[in-house]
């Protein structure tokens, strides 16, 4: 058996944490992009699109993320696309976060007072002008805090990629523990590393939210 010093444990965990961060960034970018497209589609106010997007959001918010990972992993191979754990994780985390991002951003748009729309209408602005110059800038400002807040959920969500065999922080923790069998120490360290990633984001989100409240 290989001898692990505490430093070895930490070093390996830190190396694995890179993958947690990379996976989080990809899911954030992918989910953000896809969520943005959903939000734009929804704002066209077509009944059918709205219904479809609503169902999409309900499904992704009503099924465990773990289940979504399994379904992506096994479902894609079923239709002939062999995916590795890495791609399956990226795909399902992207879909998962797109549903939540869409929900957050739609909420911000709907939270704007009706008077903003009415004022634009009486000034003769078109729908797109109203969105571009009045609605989106305000909704964006409002959405920054909850968006940062949700990024914490994404980081924590990446931990589930360990279950389908992707070696990120949590999986690395499990593997190291199997070698050294010091679960208390190993999992405490894993938790600390997650905390170090997530806590600053949480604080930032809270700070931004407070600033928003003062501004209004």
């Amino acid at each position: 058996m290989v001898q692990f010093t505490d430093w070895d444990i930490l070093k390996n965990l830190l190396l694995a944490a890179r993958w947690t961060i990379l996976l989080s960034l990809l899911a954030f970018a992918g989910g953000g992009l896809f969520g943005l497209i959903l939000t734009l589609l929804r704002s066209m106010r077509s009944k059918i699109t709205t219904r479809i997007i609503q169902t999409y959001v309900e499904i992704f918010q009503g099924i465990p993320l773990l289940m979504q990972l399994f379904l992506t992993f096994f479902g894609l191979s079923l239709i002939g696309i062999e995916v590795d754990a890495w791609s399956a994780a990226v795909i399902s985390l992207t879909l998962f976060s797109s549903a939540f991002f869409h929900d957050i951003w739609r909420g911000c748009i709907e939270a704007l007072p009706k008077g903003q729309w009415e004022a634009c209408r009486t000034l003769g602005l078109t729908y797109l002008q109203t969105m571009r110059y009045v609605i989106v800038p305000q909704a964006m400002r409002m959405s920054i805090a909850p968006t940062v807040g949700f990024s914490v959920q994404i980081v924590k969500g990446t931990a589930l990629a360990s279950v389908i065999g992707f070696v990120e922080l949590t999986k690395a923790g499990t593997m190291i523990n199997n070698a050294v069998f010091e679960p208390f120490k190993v999992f405490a360290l894993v938790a600390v590393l997650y905390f170090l990633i997530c806590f600053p984001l949480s604080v930032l989100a809270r700070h931004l939210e407070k600033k928003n409240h003062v501004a209004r």
Partner: protein
Amino acid sequence: MSYQLDFAGLVPYLPQFAAGLWATIELTVISTLGGLLLGTLCAQGRISKDAWLRRSCSCYIEIIRNTPFIVQLFFIFFGLPALGLKLSAWQAGMFAMIINLGAYSAEIIRAGIDAAPKGQWEAGQTLGLTRRQVFWHIILLPAYQRVYPALVSQCIIVMLGSAVVSQISVEELTFSANFVQSRSFLSFESYMVAALVYLLLAILMRQTFALIKRFAFKNPSL
């Protein structure tokens, strides 16, 4: 690549699914009740006059909210025995879920408490009630009412999170799906069924909470 989905092949495994579903429901009901109680106590702790109590409550909330549930679960199940606290998989799963919901709901409930007009505290205190009495009799119910939608969503998130306790072999719904797929080799179908059941559970929970709301809050919404 034309694969025929074969849901009929799952029929013999219905008892497994049923058992898993029952376990998930049990986990959900107990952890919801326990978690909301813990969350309420913690929210009260956060506004306590005792600085140490305040700080420990914040610490607990931040630690839980900023680490993944699966890591909390592994720490409790694999790590705590090192401290002499040995829990069965079922107990560890339950404990983890309660602690998890406790932290999230504490934060939500506190937001509801913060939104209470200062006059409510003052009115209670001028009537001669202690701070604790004002909290439990005057502040708490409207606070729940204010944040009820967020609270419901959080309870559902924790129910969905229960899928993760399959990883320490708690025999709930996801565990059943894993078991069935390993026996029947109908992996996609098994997970599909489980996913659908979770979706229905989420809808059912939302409706149950809507029903509770009608009985719990008789005053017009705030």
